Each structure stands twice: as C-alpha cells, then as structure tokens.
C-alpha cells in the first residue's frame, strides 16, 4: 500500500508543509467562488473586477473552457500541490487572470495549458505568501523542482483526473459529502450552486465542503488511483455518488420541480467522463447506460401541465432514440464483460433496456423484466427492488398475482410508491374503496409536489 507518485505523502507541498502552518487551507484561505461565479469577492486587494470589461465572446469561451477543462486543470494542480484547497484557490485565480488578459491578448491556442501554467505560478505565489506570513522561508526546491512549465501529457492529466475523482469519492467520506465534493470540484459548480442543488443552505454546504477538504488533508486520504484489488469497491463508491446526483435530478425528493435537469446533465457528464477514463469497468458502462436509458424518457415523463406521466401512459415517440441506442449498445457490451457476479448497474440498465425497446407498455417482454429482477435480487436485494418485481409480475400474470406479490413485500409502509402500486392493482381488481384508501395512504407520505398532484388526480378521478 505505497502511495503513487503523486500521493499526498510525496507531493511537494508536504516537504514545504514542514515549514508552513499545519494546513494552508484551513487557517488562511476562504472558500473561493466557483468557476461560473462572478470573480472578485474573495480576491486579495489589487485585483480589478474584470467582468465589466470582458467581451461576451471571451467570457463565453472562458466559461466553456472552465466547464470542459476546469476539472483537468484542477486535477493537475492537486497532483502538483497535494492540496485540494490550494489547488482550488490557484485555479480560481488563474480563471480571473484569464478574464483580465484574454480580452486584450486573445484566447490562447491551448487554453488548458495556459490555465494550468498560470494556476501553477499562482500556487507558488500563494505558498510564498503563506510562508512569509508564517515568518518562514520556502525552500527554492519546493517551488522549482518538478514545477517546470512543460505541459503534462494527456495521459498524466487523465490520471490526475482519475485521482481527483477517486479522492472525492473516497469511502471514508460520507456519500452526501462525496456528492457535494464531486459537484464542486469535478463538475465545477460553485458552492452556492451545489447548496441549491442539494437543497441545503449555502452556509451548511460551505461547512460540509470545508470539513471534507480538511479530512482529506489531515487524515491523508491519498490522491491516487486505487490498486487493482481495491478497484471494485472504489469504482462502486464512484458509481454510487454519480447515481445519487442523477437521482437527485431525476426525481427530486421535495419541491415543485420533478426534474432538476441540471443535476441529470451533471451526472451524465460525470458518467461519460468516468466511463471514458475506465472503459473496461462494467459498473461504469452499466451506470452510464442506465442513466442514458432513464433520461431518454425525459421529454415524456411530464405532461404539458408539468405533471407526472407513468411509464404505461408515456408517448414513446417522445423518447430520445439516440440515447436509447447508445444506452442499449452500452448494456450489450457491459453484459459481455460482466464477470461471474452480475453488476447491479448493468442489470438495472438491462431492465431499462427492456422498456426502451418495447414498442408499447402492453408489448413489453414482462417475462424478461421479471427474470432481470430475479437476477438483480441476487446482488441487490432491497424492498424497493422486490416491489418493482411484484409490479412486473402483476403485468405478466395479472392484477391478482401482482397484488399478492406487492402485499408480500414488507418494510415499505413508509414508501409512497408501495401504497400507490397497491392502489393501482386494487383498482384493476374492481376494489375501488380499498384503492382510494391506498392512494390516500400514498398521498400522506409523498412530499414531491408533482407526484402529489398525480396521486390526487388518481384519488379524485377514481382513476
């Protein structure tokens, strides 16, 4: 278990850290604003506010570069400095420099290299300043040494990006913290945006992110790509984080809007990124396929009034065929690579593919659906999976069989969809009073406004 060449323990800052305050980040630096925020407010004096003079084309180009390249620039800087906070500060400053100089000098040929070099110099400046403030000298070798201006190779940059992702998704961090860190660092959202996306106050999110960065630095969560034997666990920690981001967006647990599309897009971006970086990981192919297939229905999931439309009632011509094709192709290749033990994401993607390929709800291959749920239960046995399987049995074998299966699922008394599924089957069995009682049960438990409207319509209309 030795750290990689860019592990925290071998990074240059650790050498200089001996002469600096225990952590640069916690004592001195405030949280910098995100790439997409107007720069300036956490800047040291002397910086102008460049956004007023910045040509829209330059700003647009910069925002695009920051979105596309920001994570890579940041990852390279964390690799060089060994500090997530210092790297964020330096990249933020480099972005501000770009806003100042690009309108005058033009957009550089290689914006990523420009940002990387500028951020690297800025990191050296920050280290020097902190050393001075602490009344200490920074050894020349700490700021020279490997810090030459040669652009890192594409492979080195991708490796750093993987290190960044694995660090942000380290199992020693809570899942919600992994989500927040990934959105902040890999997706480049500002703290305010992450807070809004995760439905917590900005101050809470700032505290959570700061604590996370402190834990990474103080407990030495390593900046490295896990060894082969650790990879399955670590990849699934990454996948869980991305899928949670997707689900937050796909079906918000509260609030007015069912689809917080921004988070869905961020999750897809992350899913594509990790799949591209680790194309041979079945879990990541499966995860991307699953998200693509679910998102292919985006345009059909809500009616004109913004209310939920069930899978059975969706207009399938609105499904994005390009996403379906991409997703189904990915499932196929992932199934071929799935080892002896089926991967839960691949199996869920196979289930989504069954629906995506069915010409209509009625013509769905329910036999295949039930079989995939049986496979899923062997690796991911939860009451919700059992409920979904029970509903599929209802479609295959009739409402009576389905109801028996649904009622056999225990542990979902507090889950609105269990009550709604029961209601639907009771209604089909011509037991309207019991159906209405079950819809009322679902309604009292549901907090999402759009889903509540949907349940209310069921209750009011009887169906």
């Amino acid at each position, binding site marked *: *278990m*030795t750290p990689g060449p860019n592990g925290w*323990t071998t990074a240059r800052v650790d050498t200089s850290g*001996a002469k600096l305050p*225990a952590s640069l980040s916690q004592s001195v630096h405030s949280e910098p604003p995100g790439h997409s925020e107007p720069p300036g407010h956490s800047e040291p004096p002397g910086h102008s506010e460049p956004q007023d003079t910045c040509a829209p084309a330059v700003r647009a180009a910069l925002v695009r570069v920051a979105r596309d390249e920001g994570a890579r620039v940041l990852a390279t800087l964390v690799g060089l400095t060994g500090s997530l906070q210092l790297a964020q500060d330096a990249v933020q400053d480099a972005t501000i420099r770009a806003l100042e100089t690009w309108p005058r000098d033009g957009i550089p040929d290689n914006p990523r290299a420009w940002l990387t070099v500028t951020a690297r110099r800025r990191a050296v400046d920050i280290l020097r300043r902190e050393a001075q403030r602490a009344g200490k000298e920074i050894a020349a070798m700490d700021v020279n040494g490997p810090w030459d201006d040669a652009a890192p190779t594409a492979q080195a940059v991708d490796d750093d990006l993987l290190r960044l992702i694995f660090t942000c998704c380290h199992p020693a961090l809570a899942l919600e913290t992994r989500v927040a860190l990934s959105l902040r660092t890999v997706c480049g959202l500002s703290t305010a945006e992450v807070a809004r996306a995760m439905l917590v106050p900005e101050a809470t999110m700032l505290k959570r992110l700061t604590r996370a960065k402190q834990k990474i630095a*103080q*407990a*030495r969560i*390593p900046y490295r790509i896990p060894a082969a034997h650790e990879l399955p666990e670590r990849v699934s920690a990454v996948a869980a984080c991305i899928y949670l981001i997707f689900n937050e967006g796909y079906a918000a647990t509260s609030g007015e809007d069912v689809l917080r599309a921004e988070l869905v897009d961020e999750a897809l971006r992350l899913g594509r990124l990790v799949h591209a970086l680790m194309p041979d990981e079945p879990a990541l192919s499966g995860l991307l396929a699953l998200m693509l297939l679910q998102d292919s229905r985006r345009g059909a999931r809500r009616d004109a009034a913004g209310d939920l439309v069930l899978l059975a009632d969706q207009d399938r011509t609105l499904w994005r065929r390009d996403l379906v094709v991409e997703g189904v192709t990915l499932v196929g290749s992932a199934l071929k690579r799935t080892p002896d033990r089926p991967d839960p994401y691949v199996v869920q993607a196979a289930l989504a593919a069954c629906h995506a390929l069915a010409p209509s709800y009625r013509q769905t291959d329910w036999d295949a659906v039930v079989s995939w749920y049986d496979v899923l239960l062997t690796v991911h046995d939860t009451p919700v999976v059992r409920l979904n399987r029970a509903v599929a049995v209802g479609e295959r074998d009739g409402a009576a069989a389905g109801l028996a299966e649904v009622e056999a699922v225990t542990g979902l008394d507090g889950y609105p969809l269990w009550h709604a599924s029961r209601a639907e089957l009771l209604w089909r069995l011509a037991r309207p009073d019991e159906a209405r009682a079950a819809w009322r049960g679902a309604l009292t438990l549901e907090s999402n406004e759009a889903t509540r409207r949907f349940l209310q319509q069921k209750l009011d209309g009887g169906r």
Partner: protein
Amino acid sequence: MPQYIALTYTADVDWSAPEQAAEMVEYNAFGQAAAAVIRGGGALYPTATATTVRVNGGKGGDVVASDGPYAETKEALTGFYLFECADLDEAVGWAAKLPAAWSGAVEVRPLIQFGK
C-alpha cells in the same frame, strides 16, 4: 510519516482474563504482522476500573473524580494502537485486520504532528 491512532471499541472485556486467551492469540498475531507500522498501543482494563476526572469551575477549581468511563456505551473503548502509515488507506487496511473490527469497531484518527 503520518501517525494514526486506532481506538478499539468492543465488548467491555477483561483482556487479562483466561477466557480472552484465544482472542489474545489473534491480537498477538496482528501485532507481529503489523510490527512495521505499530509505534505503540495498549490493552485497557474494563471500564469498571475507569475514573473520569473533571475540575469544576475550570482551572484551579474543585477536582471531581467520578467512577466509570466518560461515556457508557454498548461497545466500550478497550484498547488502542498507534500506527505510522503512508496514508489513510494503509491505516484503514491495518485497522480492518484487528479482531476488534470484526466484532466491534475501530476508530482511526490522524494525529497532529506539531512542529513538523
């Protein structure tokens, strides 16, 4: 090199009692396997031997020593190790090999290294 303390939380046992002999064999095996990273540690007598000390009113105030551990919990602090490891992954890897982690829990915390 970073140091970590690994606090073992287990049933409130008396490690010196004969019935713990089998368990102690496991701990001794761990001690040998992890010798390269262990910088210290110890097994604690049961919480019944603990004394919790407070000074009421702050520095110079009345010393109040009370019988029992700081917190009464189902799993008690029963021992600790001091590890020197490259990073958290390595420390967690060793902690997972402690018998305490199999039946109870091991809390791994980094030490502040003052003056470094």
